[in-house]
């Protein structure tokens, strides 16, 4: 179980992101992770992939590489893109109360929720820029119960 590694690379378009997420969700459904937690993981990955499509590649498109695996009790997803660097300050440690705040519901916002959802649901975020690549590591702690199912 812990040795299962999923990886998918594709071109950053909304449709390819949808298809990639569908394959990812099918993989995830085979892991011993509670369904409520699987939903959270899927929401975070959707937002992170949409951000790459919209913001890292604003005018053109480019490659996205998604890799995911169980590591002990953690579930770890790694995303790479060759787009614009992530603005500094966008990536504080996750958890409520840090980073730029969520839009106010009474303003009826039509966007701006992406990073708020990511920060609310992920337990750890790590960004690095190597050469022309962004690498975002997203950590979900205690996602996999102990002992892992066979």
């Amino acid at each position: 179980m812990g040795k299962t590694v999923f990886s998918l690379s594709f071109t950053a378009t909304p449709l390819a992101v949808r298809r990639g997420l569908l394959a990812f969700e099918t993989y995830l459904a085979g892991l011993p992770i509670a369904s409520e937690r699987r939903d959270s993981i899927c929401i975070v990955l959707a937002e992170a992939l949409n951000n790459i499509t919209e913001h890292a590649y604003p005018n053109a498109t480019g490659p996205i590489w998604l890799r995911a695996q169980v590591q002990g009790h953690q579930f770890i997803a790694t995303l790479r893109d060759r787009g614009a660097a992530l603005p500094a300050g966008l990536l504080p440690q996750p958890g409520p109360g840090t980073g730029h705040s969520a839009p106010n519901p009474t303003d009826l916002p039509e966007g701006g929720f992406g990073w708020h959802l990511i920060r609310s649901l992920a337990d750890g975020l790590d960004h690095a820029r190597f050469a022309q690549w962004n690498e975002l590591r997203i950590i979900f702690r205690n996602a996999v119960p102990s002992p892992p199912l066979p």
Partner: protein
Amino acid sequence: MGLRAQHSNGFCLLQVEDSRIDAAGAIAFKEAVRQASEGGQDDVLLDLGAVDFIDSSGLGAVVAVMKALGPDRRLHLAGLRPAVAKVFRLTRMDSVFTIHATVADALKDAA
């Protein structure tokens, strides 16, 4: 974007037939709802029972739909599945819409 429209108990009932409202489908979703609700006076009841995933673009599209209805028609939501309810809850957008557990509940509340 599959949308089945029907009138019932003073509602324009719109049943979303796709399993996702996401960045790839948000524009088509807005357009389909606009066409289906245009011209009427009834409140709109969006049945999300078949939708198992929404992302923030989809959420934005639902907000846009509500705004497009104008001040005299409300947007009601029903049938939110767990992942969808979670996105509404975490963004606190559940406070903005009238959310019913099921379509049947919404129709009963209105009767």
